[in-house]
């Protein structure tokens, strides 16, 4: 899987976690949602680890930076740069 594909899966999983987390704040006893949330977090952790092992750290002071003998956190591209981001397929956004 290339970088953009992994990034796209991680973005999707993290977004599901954000949205379900907000839902759970006001529906804390929804067992089904809670179970789903935990499943998503488990999957996202696996994808995040895969991304970081191949393309460098994602999180400030939470990810280790041991892919090489230099500090790679500062490396380009950054998320606001066009080349960082993945292109969504047309059917996914209309």
């Amino acid at each position, binding site marked *: 899987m290339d970088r953009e594909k992994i990034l796209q899966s991680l973005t999707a999983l993290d977004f599901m976690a954000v949205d379900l987390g*907000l839902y759970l704040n006001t529906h804390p006893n929804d067992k089904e949602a809670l179970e789903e949330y935990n499943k998503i977090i488990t999957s996202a952790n696996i994808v995040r680890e895969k991304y970081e092992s191949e393309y460098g750290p994602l999180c400030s002071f939470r990810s280790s930076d041991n892919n090489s003998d230099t500090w790679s956190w500062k490396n380009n591209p950054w998320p*606001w740069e*066009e080349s960082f981001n993945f292109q969504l397929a047309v059917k996914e956004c209309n």
Partner: protein
Amino acid sequence: MWIYEKKLEFPVKIKNRDARLAKIMLEQYGGADGELGASIRYLSQRFSMITPEAKATLNDIGTEELAHLEIMGTIFSQLTDGLSVEEIKAAGLDPYYVAHGLGVYPASAAGIPFSAVGLQSKGNPVADLYENMAAEQKAKATYDYLIDLTDDPDVLRPLRFLREREIVHFQRFGECLDILRDYMNEKRMIVMPEINLLNK
């Protein structure tokens, strides 16, 4: 404490620069109903929330708004990347350019610098939650107008995502208000300790 994650909440990949679009996108970066105001509003108000649901919701939505601020800044940055002086002049972006170049500055589309005058933190959970529901509706309306004025699909995609989030946030704040009302309507019995008046 916050942890930065080196990715966007929703991808922004804009192929064509566009000075006119860049100019109007600023409204949701530093305008009265923009993402900066939203974030600061919720993250400030959370200190006076009294129910666990509202504390968590304001904390988490305030945090998500920072990710939205990043998306709007990214849209402006990519739309202005490589603009020529002619393009800047033709779109009327020259008053902005003379003050900020093509840097991202928190101002409204009309050039008014960001101001906390457009938000409140009232120390009253009911007042604050009503304000937040209104804020989400105003932000959604602003995205409606931005979408009306946008024809580039690369820009429309993140705008539509952000508009959807305003709807979800409005819903969550409404639920917080319902929960808060139930909490405030609960009957409470207060038991005073027995006082030994004779000091025996």
